[in-house]
């Protein structure tokens, strides 16, 4: 064991039984609430963890899991509610404070410095030194100790982290977290980029940690993993904890029912539209790094939804199709012609447009004006003899700002000054102004207000009525069921099912998205 931290009063040495007898939970959350502006992200979360317990935290995308974890790890302060750690009030001022108090977090994205060695990474920020000179022997010893705790003594401590596989990098990250002698370890989707074998190894490590008294919050979409690993579960839905219980004796059906559990409201205005001939057909489309295999067909005037978990390859499917990612295999037929991929500029020229899920990073030129962002892909109509005409730019931009109901001080306002919803209307407006016949929309309503959502649903419906075809990727099932004609489900890089929206229930979609892990599908290359 690394040297004991004097601040931690009762850590791993305390056996689970003693604590349970005194009935002080390791971690207790009561009525946690948190709002961001008008959005109530958490509206009452209760969670109890005993020492040595692996607790599954389950919920759909957007159910509030990440917000809850940010509250726990000190990144956000809750608006209301009480957190207790070993019976004492726990109010971390920032993530460092939380870590010192014994709550460590392993994020889905690894946080390592790839060029530095394993031991440097493990002791980053707590490097043993004397008057600024690094104590190399002690550093190596402490790194080895931490790795040994995980049963990963075979990782070379001098090697640069980038030379390790993703699974081993993850162990390095866990080893770093262990240095602070955590009482609670939170793991967010730790297996999303691991193979089957690596997942089994990780489970062994987690069980070992739990046996030493650490309480572990395990967040995962993969219910079968949770069943194999965890002793208890808690389901979050719409920012609330809606059930909790022992894993043994709870059927998966029960958990899924709690995850879905809401009524589909009639938020979704439907514009009547007719389906025409097939305009796009994919046969086992593959891309690098994803998807594995996607077959689908899209008809004129059809709104095709694609559901699936984060990381299932939905975004990548659109990107490969649009020419942003590399095409690996399979065939496509675009309006009857055989198609083997093309650059984005050719796609746009052929009338295909993509709305990026990453509005700020990719979708918009944030420091350029609304009009520039709207008209960028098709400057032809606003030019005269090859020169951009400011008058025509103003006219066209004004027309589309009106049509898209964008709230802006004027067409010259930098698009970064608008609200998220209005930014998204500009991004969608660009595709509609471009008059794209095939619209690939990736999470078009993510992170925007309800009013803007309704406005975007209406525009999508109108586009379909006008004979355009829409592929609508979303993690929010009610909107997919409410807006789409057809809903397809992707799971682990494959499109696994496709049916008319009316023949799906949310429950069935989730079951299909979670899927049974097939060795062939999970053994794929990890990202990066």
């Amino acid at each position: 064991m690394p040297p004991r931290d004097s601040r931690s009063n009762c850590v791993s040495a305390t056996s689970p039984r003693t604590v349970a007898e005194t009935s002080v939970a390791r971690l207790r959350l009561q009525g946690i609430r948190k709002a961001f502006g008008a959005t109530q992200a958490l509206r009452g979360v209760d969670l109890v963890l005993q020492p040595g317990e692996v607790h599954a935290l389950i919920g759909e995308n957007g159910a509030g899991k990440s917000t809850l974890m940010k509250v726990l790890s000190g990144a956000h302060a809750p608006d209301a509610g009480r957190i207790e750690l070993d019976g004492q009030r726990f109010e971390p001022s920032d993530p460092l404070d939380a870590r010192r108090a014994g709550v460590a977090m392993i994020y889905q994205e690894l946080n390592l410095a790839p060029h530095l060695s394993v031991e440097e990474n493990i002791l980053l920020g707590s490097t043993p030194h004397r008057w600024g000179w690094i104590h190399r022997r002690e550093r190596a010893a402490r790194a080895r100790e931490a790795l040994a705790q995980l049963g990963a003594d075979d990782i070379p401590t001098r090697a640069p982290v980038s030379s390790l596989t993703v699974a081993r990098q993850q162990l390095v990250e866990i080893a770093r977290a262990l240095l602070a002698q955590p009482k609670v370890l939170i793991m967010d989707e730790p297996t999303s980029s691991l193979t089957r074998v690596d997942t089994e190894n990780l489970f062994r490590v987690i069980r070992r940690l739990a046996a030493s008294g650490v309480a572990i919050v395990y967040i995962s979409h993969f219910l079968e993993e949770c069943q194999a690993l965890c002793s208890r579960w808690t389901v979050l839905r719409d920012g609330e904890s809606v059930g909790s219980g022992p894993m043994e004796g709870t059927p998966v059906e029960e958990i899924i029912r709690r995850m879905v559990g809401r009524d589909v409201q009639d938020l979704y205005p439907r514009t009547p539209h007719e389906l025409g001939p097939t305009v796009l057909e994919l046969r086992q489309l593959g891309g690098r790094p994803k998807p594995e295999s996607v077959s689908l067909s899209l008809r004129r005037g059809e709104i095709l939804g694609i559901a699936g978990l984060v990381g299932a390859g939905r975004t990548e499917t659109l990107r490969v199709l649009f020419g942003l990612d590399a095409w690996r295999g399979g065939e496509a037929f675009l309006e009857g012609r055989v198609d083997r991929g093309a650059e984005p500029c050719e796609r746009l020229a052929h009338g295909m447009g993509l709305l990026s899920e990453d509005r700020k990073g990719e979708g918009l030129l944030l420091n350029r004006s609304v009009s520039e962002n709207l008209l960028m892909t098709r400057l032809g109509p606003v030019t005269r003899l090859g020169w951009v005409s400011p008058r025509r730019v103003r006219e066209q931009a004004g027309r589309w700002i009106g049509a898209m109901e964008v709230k802006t001080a004027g067409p010259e306002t930098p698009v970064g000054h608008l609200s998220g919803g209005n930014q998204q209307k500009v991004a969608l407006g660009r595709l509609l102004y471009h008059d794209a016949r095939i619209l690939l929309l990736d999470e078009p309503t993510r992170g925007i207000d309800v009013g803007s959502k309704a406005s975007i649903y209406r525009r999508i419906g109108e586009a379909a009525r006008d004979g355009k075809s829409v592929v609508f990727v979303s993690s929010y099932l009610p909107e997919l069921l409410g807006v789409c004609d057809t809903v397809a489900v992707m799971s682990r890089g494959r499109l696994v099912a496709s049916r008319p929206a009316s023949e799906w229930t949310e429950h069935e979609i989730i079951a299909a998205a979670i899927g049974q892990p097939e060795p062939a599908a999970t053994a794929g290359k990890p990202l990066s």
Partner: protein
Amino acid sequence: MPGLVRRWLDVVGPFLGLLLVLGLLALSEEARPFIFTGANFKVVLTQTVIVAIGALGMTLVIVSGGIDLSVGSVVAFTSVLGARLLVAGVHPAWAVAGVIAAGGIIGLLNGAIIAGLRMLPFIVTLGMMGVVRGAAKWLSNKQTVSAPEDSPVNAIMARVKPSELLPLPHGVWIAVALAALMAVVMNRTIFGRHAFAIGSNEATARLCGIRVRWTKLWIYGLAGLFFGTSGLMQLSRLTQGDPSVAVGLELDIIAAVVIGGASLSGGTGSVLGAMIGALIMAVLRNGTNQLGWETYVQEILIGVVIVLAVGVDRFRHARAR
């Protein structure tokens, strides 16, 4: 309308800077009669031409999110090339065309490497800076090459009637005309708008179907034409090609562009601003000269002005965000 005021400030900001500098110079009783004369303004404008024309190309490059460090070397190389062509008896018109084209070719080479190999512009043009400087020395045999005395090229930058403001040298008018042309190209052509888009966010530009790599190639090529033109002005001003001239010119040019409101991270910048930026630096140099201050004072002052100008810009935009 705070938005309107802010945009108005964006346009007028550099002008205010120039007025401020002139105003400060006017405070000095003794220097005023020397600084504010037609003859002196003529000197200042003539001195600005080389930096100003270079700044036109640099504005385009910086707006697109790039940088070009090879300008000084290109100016030296093309001035030597021009002198040698004239000495060899090539018709002056062809010599001029050759000088400008040489700049363009070097620019295309920069662009081809940057776009083709997806390398950082800083590295590529840093390398090109060395290569071209070496080539200039090689071409000139490490010596200055005098242009023939009666060559019409010498007349481009010649100051006729040095004691009066007018007539200004042709070079000044050429710079003004090129600036006007460039302002229109950047704001009114699809190529120009695409340069802004690439600098603002390359991923978005690609998503919007812009052929990012081809556009970059042309950006560096066009900038190279301006740098070649700068070289021509250098040749005309000295009436000789000098392989060791214009060392560090690229930094003056970058400073002019940045003082004019461009961001080195790309996506913003204006031709007018860059021209004012070039003028501010020339006025400062000239003014402190007239005041009889040491050159090291100039250097310190100009350094301060660069940081100050960009600092003020940051401050304004930070509040806007």
